[in-house]
């Protein structure tokens, strides 16, 4: 999405840019053309004057006509372009639609001009056909259609009809303009009216269309891509190209004029050939002249903007060579090679003297820039020689074809004017001209550097790629400037005409850049599509995989379930239960991964159900205990007693966050140390240290409390200061947000003694898929998605998450979350229900012996959950003194258990302690010696041998494997206290569903005998007393109050009366009875002492579709269970009704 948006923005920007450029160009071209209008006349008259001596009197008339014609053209072009540009600026689309009209209009204007100046045109045609200059009369129209007439002087910008068609094919929305005839009515007309012109028309066309052929083919790809852009771009490029050409042409003409003027200026000096011998001090005069000319050419260089230098060569016949060489003091040199297309250095001193020829053309004066050619015989170079011969024979300025200029080796052309000693008539014969020739003035046009300079001046080099070609030989254009761009974008060709040489300029708008960006955009779009596809594939993959995992996991869970039904000792049972729970959690986690998509799309909604937070934490511990024990890490959880027993929130997500954090901690903690989860009210943080919860206060006293070489942490290994982890929280414990008194904010910390997070990675750990560094996933595995999910979930819970981490010490993550206080009764803790024996521990006393204060608190916390009050002793020695001091009081009498952590335990001391207990008890009270306190050993791991030793030696009654959690504790305590009736406690513990359904009377309504029997079998398995009927009617009869059924399972689709109808009638019946009872029309006794009748009716349905579900509720059903029965679902449905009952 961002990509395409970006592309859109780019398109818009570029279009805008093009528009702006167009505006600028419009202004530019207007200015330019207007100034051209004003400025060209004097210019032209200058030209006229300059040319007069050259062409002689005869040419004057023609020149005037030409000028007049030119002027007319200029006016029409300017008018036309103004009109066009104005119309274009009203809006691109409109402008485009209007194009043919304006085309026609211009054609009209042109026609008028033609009509008006018919005579002149006739004269012109004759002139033009004589000269080898080209005229191209073309109706140019495409998106920005223009009608232009061009002669040899104006820069023709033409688009042939074939190209038009091409473009129109690309822009079908202007398809109505497709007919070339429609587009260019004037062309045909002009041709038919003036057949003489059609001939002119033909000559340039082949060349132009030829040059187009390749440009079109290059255009197509891009044009198709830029349907919207190309129109604007074509205009832009066109106008640019046009203005370049105009400028170049103008400058060329100006230069040519000036060179011509120079030729006139220099001619008197050449008379020196004759005069010089008469002057005594030839050399001094000559050098003076040289200096003067040098200075003059230098200072007037700006008048010849396109030339790199001018030089004058004298015509020296062989007979005068000796004299000439003597006068000048140097010999005439020849060029290195005659073939001027080759690269040559030019150092006159190294060159050989010119071989004997009929005549020579040694350079005598030159502009400073080309002073290196002085003394070189221009006749010795092929191109120059031909030029010289042509120039003196025609009397015109002639151009060489491009060749590598001497020294600079740039590609350039040389303009040569012959200098005559007499005024020759225009129709003078070549022989006369040759006779009258005294020298040659040459100017070199260094095209690349000049175009470069020009482009710099125009400051749009970045925008447009310009190529200049010499196209005199149309089939093999010579690249004069610019890199050969192979796959060009929008190409625009304009003709440049330099006398008898055709140039053509190709402008390529920054198209190659635009194309690049477009290409990138296209690629990105492609990639985006691919990425989206991959995303879909990923989701599908996850769905598939999760399904595929679920199937075998069901097998695993089923087997574990069976295993738990067998006779297991408490530890085995715990293992099996843990495995079972872990498997279930695995499936839950898979679902959570699937939920990530939901989180990402912001569609995740949190549940708000009452749950026992402590049980959830136990659950997490169970799930992760396998891993932590394997690594030898101590795992513990502590919940402050301020935290209510039941909170309302999303237990799944809460657990997910904690599982994530703890999972990470386990991953990054090795071999030693601990991971400690603690939950407090956020408000507790603000309490004074004195009354503060001991565990919470841990961080405060940590720094200055290290009495016996170990830190006062859970395992005695230093940790980071957890208080820092919530330092950045903005809303921590602010009661303002807790307006509703039943809202609480919990602060959960997960502390570990792991490797810590590198400082440089600390700011990106909440970024999805970013792990501390790339090696992390190699070393520790994982996707790096966990923390990002956690962060989002915490935010959803209205909380914040933060951490503090020190490499080498560990990390502590903290997060807050807002929950609602739940009624304890709203959720009867399941363990209380399933295990009535739990209450037997209520009121017992325990002594916890542990050198770690925190850990002792954790143990105490768990004991307290069972109603056991605990005292803490930090060593066995202290425990002994505690017991001795307490022996007189009643405290010791009901001390029923001693829990010793393995850290303070060793065989000798323990044995002595055991003995002490025995003795102590015997001494203190004689009558209850039978009731010795049970001793439990707390440890994270123990080998079976060790365990056996400990138990058999009687050091301890049982071993408690940490992490401590309620289930384990209960199992262990039960095992120890009920050793006499061992086996009974754990064996065949009725499942939770059994508790719920036991002795419940249930009516099953199903017309299908098989289904009926299956339902009966399933329900009676859980201890229910099942009655079956096979029709809605029968159910009606059975459920007529008073009756003894606790619930009814109703099939939906039954003949005669379906489940919906039956339920409706039952509800009707019930409400009638209820009304009677309320109104007193009937006594409660009449209806089995029940004041309100509402038999839970659960639909049994094979397809659980939402619609059915809603319909169930509508007709008064309470819930539904899917057929065939699934224990979980059955439980959740049934729990609703029976749990509180």
């Amino acid at each position: 999405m961002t990509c395409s948006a970006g592309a859109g923005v780019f398109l818009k920007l570029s279009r805008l840019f093009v528009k702006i450029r167009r505006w600028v160009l419009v202004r530019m071209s207007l200015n330019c053309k207007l100034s051209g209008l004003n400025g060209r006349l004097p210019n032209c008259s200058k030209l006229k004057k300059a040319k007069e001596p050259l062409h002689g009197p005869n040419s004057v008339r023609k020149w005037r006509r030409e000028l007049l014609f030119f002027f007319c053209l200029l006016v029409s072009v300017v008018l036309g372009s103004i009109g066009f540009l104005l119309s274009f600026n009203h809006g691109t689309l409109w402008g485009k639609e209007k194009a043919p009209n304006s085309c026609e209009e211009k054609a009209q204007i042109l026609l008028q001009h033609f009509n008006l100046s018919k005579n002149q045109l006739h004269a012109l045609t004759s002139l033009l056909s004589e000269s080898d200059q080209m005229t191209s009369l073309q109706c140019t129209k495409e998106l920005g259609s223009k009608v232009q007439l061009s002669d040899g002087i104006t820069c023709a910008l033409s688009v042939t009809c074939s190209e038009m068609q091409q473009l129109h094919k690309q822009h079908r929305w202007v398809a109505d303009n497709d007919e070339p005839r429609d587009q260019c009515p004037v062309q045909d007309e002009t041709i038919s009216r003036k057949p003489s012109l059609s001939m002119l028309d033909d000559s340039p066309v082949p060349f132009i269309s030829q040059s187009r052929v390749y440009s079109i083919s290059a255009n197509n790809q891009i044009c198709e891509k830029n349907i919207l852009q190309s129109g604007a771009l074509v205009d832009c490029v066109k106008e640019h190209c046009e203005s370049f050409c105009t400028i170049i042409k103008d400058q060329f003409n100006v230069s040519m004029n000036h060179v011509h003027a120079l030729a006139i200026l220099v001619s008197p000096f050449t008379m020196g050939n004759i005069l010089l011998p008469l002057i005594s001090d030839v050399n001094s005069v000559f050098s003076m002249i040289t200096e003067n000319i040098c200075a003059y050419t230098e200072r007037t260089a700006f008048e010849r903007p396109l030339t790199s230098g001018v030089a004058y060569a004298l015509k020296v016949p062989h007979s005068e060579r000796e004299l000439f060489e003597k006068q000048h003091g140097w010999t005439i040199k020849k060029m290195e090679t005659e073939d001027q297309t080759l690269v040559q250095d030019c150092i006159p001193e190294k060159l050989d003297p010119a071989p004997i020829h009929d005549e020579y053309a040694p350079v005598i004066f030159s502009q400073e820039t080309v002073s290196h050619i002085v003394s070189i015989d221009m006749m010795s170079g092929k191109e120059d020689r031909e030029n010289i011969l042509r120039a003196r024979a025609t009397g015109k300025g002639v151009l060489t074809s491009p060749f590598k200029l001497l020294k600079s080796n740039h590609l350039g052309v040389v303009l040569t004017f012959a200098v005559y000693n007499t005024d020759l008539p225009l129709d003078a014969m070549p022989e006369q001209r040759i006779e009258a020739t005294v020298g040659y003035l040459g100017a070199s046009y260094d095209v690349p550097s000049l175009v470069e300079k020009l482009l710099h001046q125009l400051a749009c080099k970045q925008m447009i790629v310009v190529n200049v070609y010499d196209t005199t030989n149309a089939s093999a254009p010579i690249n004069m400037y610019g890199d050969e761009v192979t796959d060009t974008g929008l190409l625009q060709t304009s003709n440049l005409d330099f006398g008898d040489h055709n140039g053509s300029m190709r402008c390529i708008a920054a198209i190659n850049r635009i194309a690049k960006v477009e290409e990138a955009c296209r690629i990105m779009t492609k990639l985006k599509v691919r990425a989206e596809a991959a995303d879909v594939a990923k989701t599908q993959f996850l769905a598939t995989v999760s399904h595929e995992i679920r199937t075998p996991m069901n097998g695993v869970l089923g087997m574990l379930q069976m295993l738990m039904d067998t006779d297991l000792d408490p530890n085995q049972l715990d293992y099996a239960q843990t495995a079972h729970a872990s498997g279930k959690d695995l499936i839950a986690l898979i679902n959570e991964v699937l939920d990530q998509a939901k989180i990402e799309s912001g569609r995740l909604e949190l549940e708000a159900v009452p749950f026992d937070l402590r049980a959830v934490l136990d659950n997490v511990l169970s799930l992760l205990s396998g891993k932590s024990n394997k690594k030898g890490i101590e795992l513990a959880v502590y919940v402050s007693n301020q935290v209510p027993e039941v909170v309302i929130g999303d237990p799944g997500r809460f657990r997910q966050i904690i599982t994530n954090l703890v999972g990470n901690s386990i991953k990054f903690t090795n071999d030693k140390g601990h991971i400690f989860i603690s939950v407090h009210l956020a408000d507790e943080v603000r309490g004074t240290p004195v009354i503060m919860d001991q565990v919470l206060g841990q961080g405060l006293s940590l720094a200055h409390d290290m009495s016996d070489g170990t830190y006062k942490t859970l395992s005695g290994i230093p940790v980071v200061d957890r208080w820092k982890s919530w330092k950045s929280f903005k809303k921590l414990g602010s009661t303002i947000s807790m307006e509703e008194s039943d809202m609480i904010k919990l602060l959960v910390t997960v502390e570990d003694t792991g490797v810590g997070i590198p400082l440089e990675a600390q700011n990106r750990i909440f970024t999805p898929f970013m792990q501390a560094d790339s090696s992390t996933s190699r070393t520790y595995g994982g996707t790096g998605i966990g923390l990002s999910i956690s962060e989002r979930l915490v935010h959803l819970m209205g909380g914040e998450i933060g951490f503090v981490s020190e490499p080498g010490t560990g990390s502590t993550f903290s997060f807050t979350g807002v929950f609602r206080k739940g009624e304890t009764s709203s959720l009867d803790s399941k363990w209380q229900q399933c295990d009535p024996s739990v209450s037997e521990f209520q009121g017992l006393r325990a002594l916890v012996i542990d050198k770690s204060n925190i850990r002792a608190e954790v143990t105490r916390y768990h004991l307290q959950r069972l109603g056991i009050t605990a005292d803490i002793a930090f060593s066995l020695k202290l425990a002994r003194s505690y017991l001795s001091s307490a022996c007189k009081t009643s405290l010791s009498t009901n001390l029923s258990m001693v829990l010793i952590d393995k850290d303070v335990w060793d065989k000798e001391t323990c044995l002595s302690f055991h003995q002490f207990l025995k003795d102590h008890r015997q001494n203190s009270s004689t009558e209850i010696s039978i009731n010795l306190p049970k001793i439990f050993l707390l440890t994270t791991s123990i080998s079976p041998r060790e365990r056996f030793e400990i138990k058999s030696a009687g050091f301890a009654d049982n071993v408690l494997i940490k992490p401590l959690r309620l289930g384990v504790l209960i199992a262990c305590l039960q095992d120890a206290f009920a050793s006499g009736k061992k086996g009974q406690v754990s064996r065949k513990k009725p499942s939770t569903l059994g508790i719920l359904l036991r002795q419940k009377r249930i009516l099953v309504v199903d017309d299908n005998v098989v289904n009926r029997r299956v339902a009966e079998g399933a329900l009676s398995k859980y201890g229910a007393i099942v009655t079956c009927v096979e029709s809605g009617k029968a159910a009606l009869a059975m459920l007529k109050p008073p009756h003894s059924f606790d619930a009814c399972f109703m099939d939906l689709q039954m003949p005669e009366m379906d489940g919906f109808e039956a339920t409706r009638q039952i509800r009707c019946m019930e409400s009638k009875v209820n009304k009677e009872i309320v109104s007193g029309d009937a006594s409660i006794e009449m209806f089995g002492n029940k004041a309100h009748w509402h038999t839970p009716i659960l639909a049994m349905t094979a397809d659980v579709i939402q619609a059915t579900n809603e319909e169930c509720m509508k007709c008064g059903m309470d819930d539904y269970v899917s057929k065939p029965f699934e224990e979980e679902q059955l439980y959740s449905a049934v729990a609703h009704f029976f749990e509180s009952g």
Partner: protein
Amino acid sequence: MDRNHLKRQVDFMKRSFLDQGYLDEQFIQLEELQDDDNPNFVEEIVTLFFNDSARLLQNIEQALVSGPIDFPSLDNYMHQFKGSSSSIGAKRVKNECTRFKEYCTAGNAEGCLRTFVQVKQEHAILKTKLETYFQLAKQAGPSGTSGGQIR
């Protein structure tokens, strides 16, 4: 020894039924419902199914051959049959029933007739298979589906 072997054979047979799609998890769940109090639960249900289905199939056959087909009642019969099939986990039969019901909804008598043949066929195959299975299971002694009961 022999009993163990038989038991393995029973298990193998059951697994092959599941693998080949004759039965699905529902059958396993039924077996889970079987315990000491209810030692022949599965067989009882299955027998019930075959007895009941014989009646239903007859009804359907009659509805199919006698005069104009009454699709709603046909669908009703088949719904019942499908319900019981899915209750015992007769997967293949159930699938055919679903197809039959689709034809019913579409009012395609020809399709109904064709599928009905398939239904009967699958039904017969399953009957044979399950009969063999229960016979074998009986020889193997009390079912070992839940280990807890053995002790």
